[in-house]
C-alpha cells in the first residue's frame, strides 16, 4: 500500500447536503479523498466538519447529494463501510463501566474479531499507544491524554484502512498532543487514509496533505496547506498595533510595497510576499509595536472565516 497513488478516490462527495430540520449543517459540498492521503477539514465550531464526517462513517444519513465510500454509497445500514473505518471521536465515548482491557475486548466483539486474535491485537495496540501498564485500570482513573490514546487504540482494533479523527487532540497538553500526532503520522506511513477535523491550524500543518476550510456548511477553499498560505496570504505578515486614526497615513506611506492590508481591532495587518522592504520603511517611520512573522495557516483560516468572533 505504501506509496501507491490510486486514481479513483476512496471517498467521493458530490453536492453533499445535510439538514437537521430547518438548519443546513452541510450546504452542497463536493470533495474527493484519495487513498493514503491525510485530508483535513478545518473550520470554526459549527462549520459542518463533524456533520460531514458523520455521513462518511455512516452514522448520520445523507440528506441529498452523493457520497461514495470505497465504492459503496454511504448509508446508515451499511455495516461493510463501518467495518473498514476506525473512528477517533470528538467526545470521549469510552465505556466508563469497564476497564481499559474490557473496553477493547468488547469493541473487538462488535467487529466480530475472534477472541484469540483480539487478545493479540489488544496487546500490540496497548503497546502502540503506551498504555500497557494500565490494562486493568478503570476509565475514571485515566488522564485525558490517556483516554484519547485509548480511543486511538480502540479505533485501530478492526485494522481499518480509513481512520477518521474528529478533533483528536482537543483539551490535551502539548506532550500528549505530540504523542498523538506521532501515532497518526506513523499510521499514515503504513498506508492508512486519514481524515482529520480540527480547529488547530498547527495540527493541520503537521499532519495534512490536503485541507478544506469550511464555514457555515460550505467549503471555502481547498488545497495543500503551504500552497494555500502562499496563495491566500503570501510569505510574511507584519502586524502593527496602532490606533486606527493613523491607518490612512500609514497605508499611503506603505502603498508601494505591494502588500495587502487589513484592519482588525487594534491591529493593522500587512500580508507580503517579502516583508523586508516594508519593515525597513516601518523602522524609518519610527513606528513601534511591530511584529514581522511568517504567514501561517491560521492567517488563511482567519482571512477566510473572518477574524471577528463567531457566535
Amino acid at each position, binding site marked *: 500500500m505504501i506509496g501507491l497513488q490510486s486514481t479513483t478516490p476512496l471517498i467521493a462527495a458530490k453536492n453533499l447536503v445535510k439538514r437537521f430540520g430547518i438548519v443546513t449543517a452541510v450546504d452542497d459540498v463536493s470533495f474527493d479523498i484519495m487513498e493514503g492521503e491525510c485530508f483535513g477539514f478545518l473550520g470554526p465550531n459549527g462549520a459542518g466538519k463533524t456533520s460531514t464526517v458523520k455521513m462518511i462513517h455512516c452514522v448520520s444519513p445523507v440528506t441529498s447529494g452523493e457520497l461514495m465510500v470505497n465504492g459503496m454509497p454511504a448509508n446508515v445500514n451499511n*455495516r461493510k463501510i*463501518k467495518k473498514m473505518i476506525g473512528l477517533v471521536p470528538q467526545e470521549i465515548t469510552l465505556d466508563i463501566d469497564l476497564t481499559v482491557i474490557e473496553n477493547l475486548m468488547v*469493541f473487538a*466483539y462488535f467487529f466480530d474479531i475472534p477472541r484469540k486474535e483480539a487478545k493479540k491485537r489488544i496487546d500490540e495496540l496497548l503497546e502502540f499507544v503506551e498504555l500497557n501498564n494500565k490494562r486493568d485500570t478503570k476509565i475514571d482513573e485515566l488522564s485525558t491524554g490517556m483516554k484519547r490514546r485509548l480511543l486511538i487504540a480502540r479505533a485501530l482494533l478492526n485494522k481499518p484502512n480509513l481512520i477518521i479523527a474528529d478533533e483528536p487532540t482537543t483539551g490535551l497538553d502539548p506532550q500528549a498532543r505530540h504523542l498523538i500526532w506521532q501515532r497518526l503520522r506513523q499510521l499514515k506511513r503504513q498506508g492508512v487514509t486519514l481524515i482529520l477535523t480540527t480547529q488547530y491550524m498547527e495540527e493541520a500543518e503537521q499532519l495534512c496533505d490536503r485541507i478544506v476550510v469550511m464555514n457555515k456548511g460550505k467549503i471555502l477553499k481547498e488545497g495543500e496547506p503551504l500552497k494555500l498560505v502562499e496563495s491566500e496570504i503570501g510569505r510574511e505578515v507584519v502586524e502593527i498595533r496602532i490606533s486606527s486614526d493613523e491607518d490612512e497615513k500609514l497605508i499611503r506611506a506603505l502603498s508601494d510595497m505591494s502588500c495587502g492590508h487589513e484592519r482588525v481591532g487594534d491591529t493593522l495587518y500587512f500580508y507580503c510576499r517579502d516583508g523586508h522592504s516594508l519593515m525597513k520603511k516601518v523602522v524609518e517611520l519610527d513606528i513601534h509595536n511591530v511584529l514581522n512573522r511568517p504567514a501561517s495557516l491560521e492567517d488563511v483560516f482567519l482571512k477566510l472565516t473572518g477574524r471577528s468572533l463567531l457566535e
Partner: protein
Amino acid sequence: MNLSYRIYYVFLRNLISYKRFIFTTFLVSLGQPFFYLITFGIGMGAYMGAFGGKSYLYFLVPGVLISSVMMSSAFECMYGTFVKMIHEHLYDSLIATPVSAEDSIAGDIAWGTFRGLVSGVLMLVVAIMMGVFPVSIVNLILLLILMVFVGVLFASLSMIVTAFAPNFDFFSYYSELVLTPMLFFSGVFFPLDKFPAWMKVFAQFMPLTHAVNISRAIFLGTYSRELILNFLILFVMEVIAFYAGIKLMKRRLIK
C-alpha cells in the same frame, strides 16, 4: 429493522459491566417485592383466610413475581438505557461499529429482560424458602419462560418512554402514573371480582393484568380458556411495543 446476531454482543457488554453492580442490584430488586410478600402476605394474609383452599401467599406470590419482573426490566430500560445514551455516549460508539442502532436497542431490551428474569428468580427463591412452591417442575420452567416474555414487553415499553425522555424526572411520570397504579389495578394483591364493572374493563387494558393471570394459572396449575386471550393480548402488545420502542429510539440516536 436492521437486526442481527450482534444483539448478543450488546447483551454481553452489559453483562461484563454488571459484575461491578451485581450485589447492589440483587438487594434493590429484592427489596420492594420482598416487603410486599412480608407485609401483605404474612401481615394481611392472616386476616384473609384461605384462598381456594390455599393460603393467601399462593395468591400473592405469582402476582408479586411477575410485577417484580415488570419493575426490573422497566427500570433498566429507563434509567439504565438513559445513562448509557446521554451520560456515557455508549450508543454513539456502538453505532459507529457494525452494530446497528436496532441491534443496540434490541440488545438493551434483551438486557432489561435478563434483569427482570433475575429479579423474578430471586423472588421465586424467597417464595420457595417461605414454603410456597409452583405446582410442578414443568410449571416452574413455564414460569421462567413467562418471565422472559413479560420482561421483553416491559423493557420495550420503557424504550418508548426513554425515546422521549429529556431528563430523569420524566421517568417518574411513567413509574408513578403508570407502573405503580398498574400494580394495584392488575389483581396482584387481591382479586378483581369485587371491582365495579368499569374498573374491570379498565384493568383489561393493563398488560400486567394479563401477565398476572397467566402467572397465577401456571403457578397453581389451574388453567382456563381465558388464558389464550390473555396471552394473545400480551403478544400483540409486545410486538407493537418492541417495534415502536426500537423505531423511536433509533429516531433519537440517528440524526
